């Protein structure tokens, strides 16, 4: 082999090698462009001081305004003393109209193109409660003959498998029973999504797209602020509303009044009346997840 050919091959090899290396590192460089140093160094939500958090909220507001063209307010809303939330749903009156899923979609700033929502309404065969045979993709007039409708969202389990499997503790249960995610701490491994027996967690495969005039500006750090790409998200019982005494968006949207929400610790609450007077059940009881979400039939 003549020396010139050897040199050429070496140079070619080195160039290709360097090119491949740069290509392999590209996600990190691109990621660096998306994320500021402040963001990279941000601590876990539960370790943030009030001042740190304040600064982060303002930074996130500015970022949202820059990226989505809408002025938003992002708050930190903490659990209320003496409140533990419970939710119940009357399957006798649910007609499967998916207005709850739509209200969630709008309230929680979900990606428009995927019609994402924290609620999946399953069309079920009457006489069966096998979730795995429920169809979430029905597209005909409801209610259909021989079917009933089972809306499924995060069950806010007391013994939550999703929380147990998180390798970085980016998700945890708060004192009012709501399981939350620190979207800035989540590494996107999706273990929680796999662990949830109710398919209640969603992964942001891409950056959510929402037109400026459709962004809900009333946001909280742990709930409906627009999530970054590559993190897991879930229903928070609309904590930005419910921790301030309001009802969740899905309940307000329900045209049949199938949904009942309230404080489990208040013996006079609506939710307690349902638990004490209706034969309620929970989904996949055999798994021992102890949900805070109950279902019942009339009669």
């Amino acid at each position, binding site marked *: 082999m003549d020396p010139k050919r050897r040199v050429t091959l070496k140079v070619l090899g080195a160039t290709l090698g360097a090119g491949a290396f740069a290509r392999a590192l590209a996600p990190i460089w691109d990621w660096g462009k998306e994320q500021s140093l402040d963001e990279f160094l941000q601590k876990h939500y539960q370790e943030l001081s009030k001042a740190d958090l304040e600064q982060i909220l303002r930074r996130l507001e500015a970022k949202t305004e820059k990226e989505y063209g809408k002025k938003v307010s992002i708050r930190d809303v903490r659990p209320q003393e003496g409140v533990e939330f419970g939710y119940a749903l009357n399957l006798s009156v649910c007609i499967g109209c998916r207005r709850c899923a739509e209200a969630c979609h709008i309230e929680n700033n979900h990606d428009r193109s995927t019609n994402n*929502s924290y609620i999946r309404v399953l069309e079920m065969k009457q006489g069966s409660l096998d979730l795995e045979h429920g169809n979430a993709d029905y597209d005909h007039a409801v209610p259909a003959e021989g079917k009933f409708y089972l809306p499924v969202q995060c069950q806010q389990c007391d013994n939550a498998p999703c929380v147990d499997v998180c390798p970085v503790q980016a998700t945890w249960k708060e004192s009012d029973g709501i399981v939350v995610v620190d979207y800035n701490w989540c590494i996107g491994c999706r273990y929680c999504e796999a662990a949830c027996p109710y398919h209640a967690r969603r992964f942001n495969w891409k950056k959510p797209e929402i037109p400026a005039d459709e962004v809900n500006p009333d946001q909280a750090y742990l709930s409906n602020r627009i999530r970054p790409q590559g993190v897991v998200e879930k229903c928070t019982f609309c904590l930005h509303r419910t921790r301030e005494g309001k009802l969740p968006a899905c309940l307000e949207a329900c045209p049949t009044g199938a949904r009942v929400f309230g404080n489990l610790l208040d013996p006079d609450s609506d939710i307690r009346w349902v638990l004490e007077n209706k034969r309620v059940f929970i989904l996949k009881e055999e798994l021992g997840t102890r949900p805070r979400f109950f279902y019942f039939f009339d009669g």
Partner: protein
Amino acid sequence: MSYPPVINRPEKLTSVETPKKDALGRPIRVACVTCHSLRPDAPLPQSAGELREFHEGLRFTHGTLTCASCHVPGRVDQLSMADGRTIEMLDVIELCSQCHGQKRRAFDRGAHGGMMGYWDSSRGPKLRHNCVDCHDPHTPAFAGGQPVLRPNDRGLRQGGGH
């Protein structure tokens, strides 16, 4: 401080919408008494098919009830209870509750009829719907319809799964 629930008292109980709009674009409503106070009292018809003018075309599928089960001849702003008393039209919930007691009990405890506003009565009221907001008293069965927001997520498509 505790906010009591606020139950809607719909305008449609005492007035009808006209095609005309006011300066703000809201439809102008005409009170039932506008016509009924000017006319001699007619006896209540035997069936909905006999109704004319404003009430023509009214469908009636509410068990074996007749007009007089609820309406009072000559008093469009009143309703007739089973025991012969009359009540204000706007208190229609009391009328419905005579037969639908279980629904009423559930309604009073927030387990029927839905709501908006606040679960926490120390911060704000529950805004409750009226029976007739969701149920047309003449055809009370709740109608279904086409569902909204079909999921657009490959994993959920029937037959396209794993």
